[in-house]
């Protein structure tokens, strides 16, 4: 299990990469491992407004469905269209090619509410949520 140090994390196992005032969002390696083989990702449309904590995508494995929640508020400016044809990217490369959306932050201070990699790793190793 890996926990890249340049990312921030949520209790629901999303990761955030801050770049140029935007937040790139995906699910963690731990989350994809719990789900098993991902077979479908239902993504929102560019332009959708999100509030922190709102559900924005669902990830389906063969026998489970899981919601993905927005770690921060803002407007979706990009979605990873590659997941439509290759949902397995979420399993194979959750922190890079398996990203889901990019959010233009409306309140950068919300980033302070997220965990750093050490705190997230501790949470997972103590039994997750």
């Amino acid at each position, binding site marked *: 299990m890996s926990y890249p140090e340049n990312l921030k994390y949520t209790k629901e196992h999303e990761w955030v990469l801050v770049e140029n005032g935007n937040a790139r969002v995906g699910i963690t390696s731990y989350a994809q491992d719990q789900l*098993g*083989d991902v*077979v*479908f990702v239902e993504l929102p449309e560019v332009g959708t407004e999100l509030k922190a904590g709102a559900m924005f995508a669902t990830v*389906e*494995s*063969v*026998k489970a469905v899981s919601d993905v929640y927005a770690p921060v508020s803002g407007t979706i400016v990009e979605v990873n269209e590659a997941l439509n044809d290759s*949902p*397995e990217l979420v399993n194979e490369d959750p922190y890079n090619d398996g990203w889901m959306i990019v959010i233009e932050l409306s309140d950068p201070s919300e980033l302070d509410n997220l965990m750093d990699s050490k705190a997230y790793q501790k949470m997972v190793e103590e039994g997750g949520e």
Partner: protein
Amino acid sequence: MRSPEPLIFEISKPGRRAYSLPELDVPARDVAELLPESEIRREPAGLPEVSEIDLVRHFTRLSQLNHGVDIGFYPLGSCTMKYNPKVNEDAANLPGFNNIHPYVPDELAQGALQLMYELQSYLAEIAGMDYVSLQPAAGAHGELAGILIIRAYHRARNDMKRTKILIPDSAHGTNPASAALGGFTVVEVPSDERGGVDVEALEAAMDETVAGLMLTNPNTLGLFDENIQRIEKIVHSKGGLLYYDGANANAILGTSRPGDMGFDVLHFNLHKTFGTPHGGGGPGSGPVAVKSFLEPFLPVPTVVLEDGKYRLSYDRPQTIGRMKSFYGNFLVMVKAYAYIRSLGPDGLREASRDAVLNANYILRRIAGYYDVPYDRHCKHEFVISPGKIKKETGVRTLDISKRLLDYGVHPPTNYFPLIVDEALMIEPTETESKETLDYFADALIAIAKEAYEDPEAVKSAPHTTVVGRLDEAGAARNLNIRWEKPE
């Protein structure tokens, strides 16, 4: 070793045929004269072209790739895969039941209507309820009917604030889905450490916005809820109704009745409890039964007896309406009726008692080898978990199930109920002999040992089936849900 069977399309050859039709005995006219040209199909539908022997061999060989109750043990929890008596099949194949159009005048279908009328009354008696509608086509369909009846009851009293249905976390998936399809919000109630409803949590959740509680009793852990009388008071005292999911009714036939427990509405699964076969997924039949105060809301029509004549009655102004066309899955009713008539009151009770005896016997035989999360006497089924085995060998429920295939046994229900990690849910039914139960218990014990001695053999099972473990993720990622003729 059996080999896979080609698709019917792959054995098709232009010009072959199985059908024959009589010569047209009326003056032939040009079809283009009878139907508008724009509406006529230009390309024929791509159906196969096979001779009768191709057809018969295809489906016969195909059938040999399937497991069924007639082949071997089928302890699939919550599905009650009991033996289906052959005389019932013969009864359902009688021309007098098959060759009647649903819209014939009532006087020409008196046998069918009598059978339905009597089945309504037997089911009411077995359930301890007052009125029955046979219309729902399956258990989930009966659940939806029941939920709509609950909705209609509250609305008729102008009680519009009841928007929630309470459902225990051990419930079948159909319960929350039916409640949602019926327009309600689902609130989950946790289970207590004995496996029953957490009564305090229920009390906290129960208020004037709750329309009712859906409960399976015995529940999906195979445990009878000892607090049923308290649960009944909590729900009724706040104006809610009690819905009984009859999926597990085989455990209590002739011993206890949902109506006496205080339930207001229920469904039975005729294809589980009353011995009608499951047909590879259906048809089933899910009659709904209610206490008399809910009778005005039942689906129409029902069968009534007046002046010695049976007839369909539509006279029910407050009905929830129709659940399906016509009157329900009639031929399934024929089999269930025959089943109840052959067993009678003693037979039903004895069947239920042996179902419970068989389940407890297997449980005791394997208890030392698997985790038993709720170690009580069970009813018709029970749940175990290979928790310790998984931790120590990596062998999971799925692997154990697949290994059972090599013993010629259908595996138990896997990964359900959700409240038990790595659940294996076992329901032997009453129609299995002690020898079969011993064979199965021995197999489970052997697999538990094998998990330690040769875990790979378990993890790579099955080894003897026509196909090995199939790539389900691949099937979902690269959907192929219909055959296309190769270019």
